[in-house]
């Protein structure tokens, strides 16, 4: 067990290293002088020189990487010329909306997708199953921003039930906060629901074919108990895996959803930073999102060995 955890941890090192090198190279691969790019369009020659000296841009590439990663590791993420703030400050301001939106979406998606997937599996081939699978294909095909505008049009403009756009912090009142989070979470959850329900269905159908399910049925257990306690529990591993893998989709969706609903989170920050060619911000945001993605999947992998004693690596 400990050996497995150690091996799994070691396996993430090259991945994280790759992401760091990629993000580092992002600025070096752009045409133009990195120091001038970091300094921004209105910088004086002295400022550019100061940045060049600070980042060690005259040093060899490997040394530059060492300097850069050392600074990032010590929590110095650099400065944004566009927002006139340190990147760390920017991120700490923008993290709450993104975190809240993601949490709401994950909870919503799992609460909807798992029961729906189990239901579809238990009625395999029936009309419920067809509707669920049809919805799932739709969910993969309707772009997130289209869902967003459709919801805004129906619920905010035509019906007027919900506010059109914007975000309120929890500290500004829970009611305001949650009501503005409903549409973004639903928007973002659609593709996630499509993904999870599909895997849940497939996984439950597979376990329903196992011998112990037949045994459970034969000894007269009610269908519901068989389905939930025997089938779903044994089908859990692929479902949890896909929730982890789906985080990548979720992060992509966050960028779009935050733009549609005007939510001042990390996703919007990413887009704004790209539009302003604000590389220090782009670098750190990409790295953060990737680390979160890797970390969640690491935790899920480790959780398996606890959840499912059969899994021994």
């Amino acid at each position, binding site marked *: 067990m400990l050996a497995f955890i150690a091996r799994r941890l070691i396996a993430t090192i*090259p*991945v*994280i*290293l*790759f*992401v760091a090198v*990629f*993000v580092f190279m*992002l600025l070096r*691969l*752009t*045409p133009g002088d990195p120091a001038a790019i970091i300094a921004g369009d209105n910088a004086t020659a002295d400022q550019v020189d100061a940045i060049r000296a600070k980042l060690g841009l005259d040093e060899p590439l490997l040394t530059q990487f060492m300097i850069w990663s050392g600074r990032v590791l010590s929590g110095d993420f650099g400065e944004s010329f566009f927002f006139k703030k340190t990147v760390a400050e920017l991120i700490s301001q923008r993290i709450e909306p993104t975190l809240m939106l993601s949490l709401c979406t994950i909870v919503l998606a799992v609460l909807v997708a798992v029961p729906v997937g189990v239901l579809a599996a238990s009625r395999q081939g029936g009309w419920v199953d067809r509707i669920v699978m049809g919805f799932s*294909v*739709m969910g*993969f*095909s*309707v*772009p*997130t*921003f*289209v869902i967003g*505008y*459709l919801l*805004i*049009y129906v619920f905010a*403009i035509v019906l007027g039930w919900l506010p*059109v756009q914007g975000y309120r912090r929890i500290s500004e009142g829970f009611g305001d906060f949650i009501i503005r989070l409903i549409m973004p979470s639903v928007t973002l959850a659609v593709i996630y629901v499509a993904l999870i329900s*599909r*895997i849940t269905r*497939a996984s439950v159908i*597979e376990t329903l074919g196992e011998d112990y399910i*037949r045994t459970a049925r034969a000894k007269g257990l009610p269908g519901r108990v068989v389905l939930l306690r025997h089938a779903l529990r044994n089908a859990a591993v692929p479902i949890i895996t896909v929730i982890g893998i789906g*985080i*990548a*989709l979720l*992060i*992509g969706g966050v*960028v*779009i959803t935050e*733009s549609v609903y005007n939510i001042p989170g990390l996703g919007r920050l*990413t*887009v704004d930073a*790209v*539009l302003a*060619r604000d*590389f220090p911000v*782009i670098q750190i945001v*990409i790295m953060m*999102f*990737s680390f979160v*993605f*890797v970390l969640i999947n690491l935790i899920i992998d480790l959780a398996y060995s606890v959840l499912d004693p059969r899994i021994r690596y």
Partner: protein
Amino acid sequence: MSIVLENEVDAAAARAAAVARPSIWVRLLRHPSVVIGGCIVLVMMLIGLCAPFLGTIPPAQIDPTTRNKKPGVEITVRQDDGSTVQRTVLMGTDSLGRDIYSRVLYGARVSLIVGFTVAAISIAVGVLIGLLSGYIRWLDGIVMRIMDGLMAIPGILLAIGLVSLFRAGLGTVIFAIVVPEIPRVVRLVRSVVLTIREEPYVEAAISVGTPLHKILWRHVMPNTVAPVIVQGTFICASAVLAEAALSFLGIGIPTDTPTWGNIMAEGRQFFRVYPHNIFFPAIFLTLTVLAVNMLGDGLRDTLDPKMSKRV
């Protein structure tokens, strides 16, 4: 009891099916998703191809007198020679007076070009890397670490990062969408190669001294065709989506080219009053992606039944 009986019936059906198995084309044409999806894709291709002949006006033509017209309104268009013609704007006009119908039809071109090009390039590169990495053991470790690293960066984010490197344009967008897709193809091809590598006919080919490139091309590669075609279809769908998303965010194709994403991006400002600017391109975009996905599902069921058990 009934389960046993069902198994018997299934087995008998499988035996019967194995005897009289229609050709792959017949089976494809019998699959409803393939037919419906394929037809819609074909129609979209025709629309893109024939855009100039479908009653459109130049999609970039700005007309201050016909700004923000709702769908179905009749407008007067002044032509270059000074004469005027009456014209019904089927999908309305945008805030610059450009005809949404024309823009949407021309937009089909960009979406389909991006979809097909991305699928073709990522498959070509992915198959090559996958074959080499699956077959040459010392290469495998290095290549797969790089692929793991690429997959650790969420697709859209990786594309956004790559877009930020270069000047916006069709080439940049295609490149930015291709890179995140490559690892998925590599993994798929590699997994096929790993099982094929152990087959007796490959061993036989090695024993008679067949050169490496010939083994890979003649004996290993053909096994990857079916899953790769299926994967390519899904890549095409996600590429169309990704291009629209990037353009929508304002970091994709430059705004002077009409693409579905761009039309929607420009429609955002006046969405509350004139939602048609967003809805018409949205319908075309959704329909196209849905059709390509349906085609992919059908192809998977027919070409690669083993894969349909996964996802």
